[in-house]
């Protein structure tokens, strides 16, 4: 036996190895059962195929998971993202509304308020939600799960207040571009997610921001003593997370051309946390990986796609996700790994040695 070369070693110990392997396995599974899965073709002026579809549908989850990654890195959690998605979607839809006006024999688009105003209001509301969460956590010092629980409970009520308990339908074609339009042959939502990822990635790797966030997660007191503006940074991270959720809300509502205060973004917080966990970010704070979370989100979406295309009832999805969470959690637990090692290696060692 020759020992593996350093490059192989590095690949084997890279922390994104398992997420990538999982994703590749899932893609292979899909491809095995569905021969046209990897097929991408140019149709109607844009790329068309299962892979594009997965990327498109994963965009909102990617956005939320990115924001959630940074929150979790500071040893926090934000379970209000689903409610923030609902609020942003409701506000945008309510402000745009729109009606089908037939002018000179052609349908013309009329919105209640200019679209930029509606989008700004929705994102502004999302930022305000983030500010609220951040202040509760950083200033008042509540446990993050409880602080965000408040908005999770009240947020759906606020969203329903905006939509007046109805499902608001949007009849304004330009708005549909955000979640359903195509740019350079690719879904526009993909560009939003990619831009946010690129900005965050640069900010985290090219400046000390990533280090600061990590230091807060590892030891908040020490970070503060070392001169990191921990409180301000924590508030900022929650605002960023809510902003991402707001963007996701815009994409979702524009994609389904309506806003439902009660159901928009339902269980999205759980999917986002799952994506972050799958990506190798430790839930106890500190170590984080933005790229890992993107891969995690893609894993979830590919899994969903696989479940649909294999003809398994989609409801099984929840059970599969639960099993995946349990497995990932156990694999992350040092106690479990130690126990497994004992189980696997002890008999082997006893049989193999001398």
């Amino acid at each position, binding site marked *: 036996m020759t020992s593996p070369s350093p490059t192989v070693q590095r690949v084997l110990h890279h922390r994104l190895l398992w997420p990538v392997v999982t994703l590749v396995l899932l893609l292979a599974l899909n491809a095995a059962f569905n021969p046209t899965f990897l097929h991408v073709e140019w149709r109607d002026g844009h790329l068309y195929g299962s892979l594009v579809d997965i990327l498109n549908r994963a965009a909102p989850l990617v956005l939320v998971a990115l924001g959630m990654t940074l929150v979790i890195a500071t040893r926090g959690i934000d379970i209000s993202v689903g409610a923030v998605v609902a609020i942003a979607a409701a506000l945008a839809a309510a402000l745009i509304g729109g009606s089908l006006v037939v002018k000179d024999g052609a349908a013309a688009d009329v919105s209640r308020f200019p679209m930029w105003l509606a989008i700004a209001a929705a994102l502004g509301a999302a930022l305000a939600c983030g500010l609220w969460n951040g202040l509760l956590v950083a200033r008042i*010092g509540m446990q993050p799960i409880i602080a965000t629980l*408040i908005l999770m409970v*009240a947020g759906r*009520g606020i969203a329903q*207040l905006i939509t*007046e308990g109805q499902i608001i339908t949007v009849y304004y074609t330009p708005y549909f571009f955000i979640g359903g339009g195509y740019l350079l042959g690719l879904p526009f939502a993909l560009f939003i997610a990619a831009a946010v990822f690129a900005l965050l990635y640069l900010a985290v790797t090219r400046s000390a921001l990533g280090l600061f966030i990590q230091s807060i997660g590892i030891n908040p007191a020490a970070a503060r003593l070392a001169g990191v503006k921990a409180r301000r940074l924590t508030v900022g991270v929650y605002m960023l997370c809510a902003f991402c959720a707001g963007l996701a809300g815009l994409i979702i509502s524009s994609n389904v051309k309506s806003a439902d205060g009660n159901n928009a973004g339902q269980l999205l917080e759980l999917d986002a946390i799952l994506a972050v*966990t799958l990506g190798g970010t430790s839930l106890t704070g500190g170590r984080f990986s933005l790229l890992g979370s993107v891969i995690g989100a893609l894993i979830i979406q590919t899994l969903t796609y696989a479940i649909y295309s294999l003809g398994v009832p989609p409801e099984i999805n*929840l059970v599969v996700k639960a*099993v995946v969470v349990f497995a990932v*959690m156990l694999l992350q637990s040092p106690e479990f790994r130690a126990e497994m090692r004992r189980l696997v290696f002890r008999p082997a060692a006893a049989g193999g040695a001398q």
Partner: protein
Amino acid sequence: MSAVAPGQAPAGAAGPVAAAQPGTPAFAGARLQRRSLPLQVTVSLFVLMATLGSLAYPGFFSLQVFLNLLIDNAFLCVVAVGMTFVILSGGIDLSVGSVIALTTMVSAWLVEQHGWHPLAVIPLVLLMGTAFGGVMGLLIERYRLQPFIVTLAGMFLARGLCYVISIDSISIGNEFFSELSFIRIPVWGDATITLSALIALAVVAAGVYLAHYTSFGRTVYAVGGNEQSALLMGLPVRRTVIGVYALSGFCSALGGVLFTLYMLSGYGLHALGLELDAIAAVVIGGTLLTGGVGYVIGTLFGVMMLGIIQTLIAFDGTLSSWWTRIAVGALLFVFCLMQRVLTARGGTH
């Protein structure tokens, strides 16, 4: 302050858990008062809202309206008692709502489609809920996993299992179940109470006993106060943590049985988001989210508080149902804030 009498009796019993007892009785009294302050606020607020409601809406001030608070929230009350123990131990259980749904589903499925007798089904689902909670507790304790994420996965799993049984709602036409749900026990004059409400009250009483008069209860307080110290004191921490989640699972399953009686159907979407209501009830009832401080009886008031908000909004008629969520959120905020202020002051002393 006579209104706090029910809270103070168990408080006195819980006192020894604070163990060392270094201070004079006067010191201990001041400490107790601070600890039970959230509960006092809840009870006062409840009385205030009941008074305002009675003054504002004719027909509000009747025994039946108040009994209905308990009747309509019996399942929530049972679940919240289990949740109180979990939160007292410093954990959280997000799976309660979905365990209720699973219980209704399994009950309906076995009774309606397999012809089982309800008396065989009910013990089975109670056992199932207890085992479900116990396994989650085992994972949390043995592998040092976060309760939040384990119970979250449990929530996915239980809801998913509902859909494995059936995607659609299964309605229950079983005579035994419908008879049970129609039982009315006269209380005073025309006012009546259901079997579910009585069970809920019994669970609260059992919870008070368990929390304040048994070694299990004291260990729960000790674990919530400081798990490390509890371990060093030689308390059975591991067994207690698993027991707490098993208890919560049992309470969820019992709540599920009551919910089955209430809705007479099994459905995977039943009790969606109930975990949040249960946590809210526990917090409003004065239990500290960091664990170690709180009263089971407070949870009863927390549930009644949520109930009276709904009732007030229903009586008003002009307010829409979503105001309930906003009001509950606001109330949650106020109580969390109060807890922070109280613990912060406690820390500096």
